[in-house]
């Protein structure tokens, strides 16, 4: 065991070099910076925005609209001019993002149910989020005014009738059923909530598989490039330990690297999404439906993730043997990236159950697909496919490790590349 630790320590130290640390710090800082910038933009979009209003009507209704705008977090600048052109100039100079012009006779006309337009002028000074979010809010205020006017009209003409009932006489109630549980709620909201909770899982998995595999391929390729592999293979240590030490150290460094990237990525994403509180209602619905990870669920998902990573590492170590040097190692990573990308994109854009059989079989064959499928199945309490996936990944891992150990215990660790280059030479001769 002492020899194994000696090797593991060296492998880990070899991987954690200055380039890796600098690139980690740089990427983390970049994500943090982008997140902070996005957060600033979101804060600006949420901050009270200046809106210039030229009220030519001065009616109760027009004043109501201005009050409505103030309540909707706008800082209203009331313009005193009578002329539309000079109002535009004044609004431009004041830096307001938009100008509302309420025409003369607006209040009277609307109350007589003759619709009239409020003209809105948008000053586009940039294309950031804060510059474009105001239009939606103005539309919301006008919708509220419309609602208010129609409700007032109905109340006056049809006393005793609830305007809401009249406008929407047919209503519906949504119920969501998951297995034997039922709860009142919108399926779209439930799906949206679950997806928002599991957005990070595919990204984490992708990152860990790619980083760890890259580490292990590089570890083998570096031994070849630095011409240290032959010496290492003649020291008195079980060859299987060499395979395990390389996989283990790459796994650890890959996990740490992916973890740091994920924290940075979370900063970046929270910049866009902020700490948006979830509505208590959806929480209750999700709880009622049992759509939350239990400790056992987390454990099963963890096992599934771990086995997928091990499969990636075992594949990588075999591919690493084929590498001549670090440069060629980068190309050899491609098959693993593709295998990780297929389930990643399919999980992003479609549902496994709605896929055709050939695609389903393809996904089943790829070991990295199983954690993607497992997270949804665990939430839905559908455990058998998760366990089949775990058994499948274990079998794949065992076969790959057996192959890797066989390669490292035979000439192939040194001659596989030799045979390939001989073949290519033959090809040139022909």
């Amino acid at each position, binding site marked *: 065991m002492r020899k194994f630790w000696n090797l593991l320590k*060296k492998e880990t*130290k*070899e991987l954690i070099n200055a380039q890796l640390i600098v690139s980690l710090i740089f990427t983390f800082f970049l994500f943090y910076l982008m997140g902070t910038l996005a957060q600033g933009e979101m804060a600006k979009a949420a901050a009270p925005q200046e809106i210039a209003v030229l009220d030519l009507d001065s009616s109760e209704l027009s004043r109501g609209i201005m009050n409505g705008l103030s309540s909707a977090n706008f800082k209203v600048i009331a313009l005193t001019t009578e002329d539309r052109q000079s109002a535009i100039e004044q609004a431009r100079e004041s830096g307001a993002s938009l100008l509302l012009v309420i025409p003369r006779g607006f209040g009277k006309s609307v109350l007589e149910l003759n619709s009239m337009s409020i003209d809105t002028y948008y000053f586009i000074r940039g294309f950031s989020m804060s510059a474009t979010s105001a239009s939606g809010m103005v539309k919301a205020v006008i919708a509220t005014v419309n609602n208010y006017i129609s409700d007032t009209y109905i109340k006056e003409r049809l006393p005793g009738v609830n305007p809401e009932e009249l406008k929407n006489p047919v209503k519906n109630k949504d119920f969501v059923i998951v297995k034997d549980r039922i709860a009142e709620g919108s399926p779209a909201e439930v799906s949206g909530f679950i997806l928002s909770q599991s957005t990070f899982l595919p990204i984490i998995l992708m990152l860990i598989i790619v980083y760890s595999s890259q580490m292990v391929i590089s570890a083998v390729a570096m031994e070849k490039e630095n011409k240290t592999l032959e010496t290492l293979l*003649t*020291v008195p240590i079980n060859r299987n330990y060499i395979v395990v030490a390389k996989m283990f150290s790459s796994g650890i460094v890959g996990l740490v690297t992916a973890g740091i990237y994920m924290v940075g990525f979370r900063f970046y994403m929270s910049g866009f999404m902020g700490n948006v509180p979830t509505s208590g209602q959806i929480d209750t619905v999700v709880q009622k439906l049992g759509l939350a990870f239990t400790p056992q669920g987390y454990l099963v998902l963890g096992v599934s993730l771990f086995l997928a990573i091990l499969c990636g590492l075992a594949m990588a170590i075999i591919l690493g043997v084929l590498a001549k040097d670090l440069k060629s190692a980068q190309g050899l990573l491609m098959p693993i990236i593709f295998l990780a990308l297929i389930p990643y994109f399919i999980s992003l854009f479609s549902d496994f159950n709605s896929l055709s059989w050939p695609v389903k079989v393809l996904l089943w064959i790829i070991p990295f697909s199983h954690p993607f499928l497992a997270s949804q199945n665990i939430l839905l309490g559908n455990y058998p496919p998760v366990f089949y996936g775990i058994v499948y990944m274990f079998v794949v891992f065992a076969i790959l490790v057996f192959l890797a150990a066989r390669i490292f215990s035979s000439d192939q660790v040194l001659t596989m590349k030799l045979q390939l280059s001989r073949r290519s030479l033959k090809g040139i001769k022909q």
Partner: protein
Amino acid sequence: MDAVLKVEGLKKNYGNLQALKGISFEIQKGEIFALIGPNGAGKSTALRIIATLLSPTEGKVEVLGHDLRKEPEKIREKISYLPEEAGAYRNQRGVEYLRFMANFYATEPEETKEFVKRGAQIADLGERLYDKIGTYSKGMVRKLLLARALMGKPYLAILDEPTSGLDVINSLEIRQTIREYVKEGTTVLLSSHNMLEIEFLSDRVALIDNGVILDSGTPKELKEKYGADNLEEVFRRAVI
């Protein structure tokens, strides 16, 4: 006499290419035995098989009574191998490299320290031993690797072209080191195409060409047999 290494009818094929066509030889304890021959003669293949890196196609290899096919791990405990084109971990310091390698052979921390101390003496790099290997010259790396190969007093040191690619001064120093440190009981199997170097170092030599051992004996015996002044001439006459 105790044979440290016995090689019988050793053959190695790479596909259709026969690199070794059935070579046999023995090395006795404390001997420096050399395989000499031109590039591609099969020297490195033979050494790599004995170092447990390649498996033989046919034939038998025994190191201190351990069969190569059955007990390669036992053999690795008894030998050390210096490949022709070897490197060391560029991010490690010289002393770290020696410690890392010593840990595989030592059974306890005290023994590791002893091996590293001996390795430092053999390498003779002074304060540079504490610098990163990436900053070393080719000669310094070779000295460090030779120190690594000899520091644990292996029963059998396998040295493939120990002075390959080095200048005259570095080559002389390496040869001197091998001569000096094998006196302590290590048996050496080395290969070289530099016949003058072999004459200086070896107790016995085997002439190998095209995967076949043409002749073997002490340099003196061979020179007398072929009526030659040096091993280069011996080799030329043996080939004809």
